C-alpha cells in the first residue's frame, strides 16, 4: 500500500510561490492549504491539501461531520474557502468572476446528500431541469433525459413526483440529474446511502464505466464494503483534516 504522492508537485510548488495558480491540463481539482470556517465559528476543514488528476476515482471517507460535504461544497463554489486556494479545472474559485461561476459548475455533476429535488416536478422534469436552465436546446434534452433515466432504472417512475418515490428512487433521480449533462467531474455525496446492495453495486459499476471514459469521480461514502472491494484511491478526513491519502486502499486503515 503506497501512500499517494501528489500527482504534480510542481504545481503545488508554483502555487506556494504565486498567489494565482496556473492552469494545468492534468489536475482537475487542486486544494492547497484550504481551511473552511463556517460563520457560526465551526472549523469544518483545516489545512487540506488535495490534488486530483484528471480521470481519477477518489473515495472520500471519514466519520459523520468530518467535513466531506463541506469539501464538495467548496468545489462547486457553494461556499468559499476561508483560507487557501481551491482550483477546479484551472480556475481559482476565489478569483473567479461571478459571471464565470456557472461555466465551472457545468463541468461538474453533483449528487447532493439531501438530493435537492424539486417537489413539484416529476422525475423526468427534475432531470431535464439541469439541462433546460443551462440553455440546452429542447431537441437534445429529450433523448438525453430518457437515456439517463434508463441508465439508473427509473423509466417506470418518470412521471412521479419526488414524494411519490421511495428513498432509493429519489437518490437515483439525483444521480441521473448529475449525469445528464455529461460532466467532466462527478461529485457524489453518499450516492448509495439509500440504496440496497444490488442497486448500489450497479451504480458503482456505472460510475466505474463513466470513469473509464476519462471522467474524474469524487465520491463520499460510508460504504466500507464498496470502498474495500474496489481498491481505489481513498482520502480519509477526520475533524476537517486529511489523515490518510492512499492508492488502492480499504475503508479502514490497515495497520
Amino acid at each position, binding site marked *: 500500500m503506497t501512500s499517494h504522492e501528489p500527482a504534480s508537485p510542481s504545481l503545488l510548488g508554483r502555487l506556494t510561490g504565486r498567489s494565482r495558480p496556473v492552469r494545468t491540463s492534468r489536475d482537475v481539482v487542486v486544494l492547497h492549504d484550504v481551511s473552511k470556517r463556517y460563520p457560526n465559528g465551526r472549523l469544518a476543514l483545516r489545512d487540506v491539501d488535495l490534488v486530483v488528476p484528471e480521470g481519477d476515482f477518489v473515495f472520500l471517507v471519514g466519520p459523520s461531520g468530518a467535513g466531506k460535504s463541506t469539501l464538495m461544497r467548496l468545489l462547486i463554489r457553494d461556499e468559499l474557502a476561508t483560507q487557501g486556494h481551491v482550483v477546479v479545472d484551472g480556475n481559482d474559485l476565489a478569483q473567479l468572476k461571478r459571471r464565470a461561476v456557472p461555466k465551472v459548475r457545468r463541468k461538474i455533476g453533483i449528487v447532493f446528500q439531501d438530493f*435537492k429535488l*424539486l417537489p413539484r416536478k416529476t422525475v423526468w422534469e427534475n432531470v431535464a431541469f439541469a439541462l433546460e436552465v443551462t440553455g440546452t436546446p429542447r431537441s437534445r434534452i429529450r433523448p438525453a433525459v430518457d437515456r439517463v433515466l434508463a441508465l439508473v432504472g427509473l423509466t417506470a417512475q418518470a412521471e412521479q413526483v419526488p414524494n411519490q418515490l421511495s428513498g432509493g428512487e429519489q437518490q437515483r433521480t439525483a444521480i441521473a440529474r448529475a449525469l445528464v449533462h455529461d460532466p467532466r467531474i462527478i461529485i457524489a455525496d453518499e450516492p448509495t446511502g439509500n440504496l440496497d446492495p444490488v442497486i448500489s453495486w450497479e451504480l458503482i459499476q456505472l460510475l466505474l464505466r463513466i470513469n473509464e471514459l476519462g471522467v474524474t469521480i469524487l465520491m463520499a461514502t460510508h460504504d466500507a464494503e464498496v470502498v474495500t472491494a474496489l481498491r481505489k484511491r481513498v482520502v480519509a478526513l477526520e475533524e476537517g483534516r486529511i489523515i490518510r491519502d492512499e492508492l488502492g486502499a480499504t475503508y479502514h486503515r490497515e495497520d
Partner: protein
Amino acid sequence: MLVFALFSIRRAWQGFWRNALMSLAATLTMVLMLTLLAGFFVLQNVLLASLSYVEQKVEVVAYIENTATQEQVDALVSQVQAMPEVASVEYVSRDQALANFRAQLQAQGRPDLTANLDQNPLYASINVKLHDPAQLNTVVSAIHDDPIVRSVINIQALVDRVLTFTGIVRTAGVVILGIVGVIVLFIIVNTIRLAVVARAEEIEIMRLVGASDAFIRWPFVFEGALVGLFGALITLGMLALAADPLSKAMVNFFNVLPIELGSVGRDTAALVLGTGLGVGVVGAWVSVRTYLIR
C-alpha cells in the same frame, strides 16, 4: 438569444400555472389593487375638473358710475382686456342688469317687484374672468383705481376661501392618491416576493447546477410581468364594463358641472397597464436579486 427568450417565456408560463395558488393570489391582489388605484385616479380627475369649474366661477365685478361715458367704459374694458391675468371681460349695461335681475327673480319664482320702480336702480358693471384666481389682487387693484369705477365687489374673502379650499382638496387628493399608490405598490411587490420566496429552493438548485444569472432571473421577471399583465387586463376589462353605466349615472346627476373628462379613459388604461407591468417586473427583479447575490 431567441432560444433564451423562448425558454424564459415558456418557463415563466409553466411557473405561473405550476404554482397556481400563488399566481392566482398574486393576480387577484393585483386586480384588486389596480382597481383601487384606477378608482382613485378617476375620482381624482373628476375632483380636479370640478375644482377648475368652481375656480372658473371666480370673477371680479366692478360697478360703473352712472356718469361714465361710453368711451371711458370702452377704454377701461380694453385696458382690463390687455392685462395678462385676464381671461375675458364682459360689459353689462344698466338695462341689461335690470333684465338679468328680473329673469333671476322669475326663475326663483319670486314676485317681481321691479315693475313698481320709477327708475332703474341698478348700476352697469364689467365682469372680469381670470386665468388664475390667485391673481385676483392685481386685477382688483388695477380696476379699483379707475375713476369711473364706483366699487369693486369685495369677494376677496370668498375667493380666498374657495382657493384655500380647492387647494386643500387638491393636495388631499394627490396625497390620498399617493398613499393608495404606495399601498398598492407595497402589497403587490410583497405578494410577488412571497411567490419568489416560496421558490427559493428552485433558485438554489438552478444556481448549483450551473444556470447563469440571466437564466435564473428572466423566467421570474417574465412571470412577474405575466401577473402584472393579467392583473391589468382583468382590471381594465372590469373597468370597461363598469365605465358606461357609471359615466351615464354621472352625466345624469352631475350635469350641473360640465366636466371635461375626455382623456381620463386613456390615462387610466395607461396607468393601470403601466403600474401592473412595472410593479410585476420590478418586484420580481428585486425579489430574485436577493437570491442571486451569493
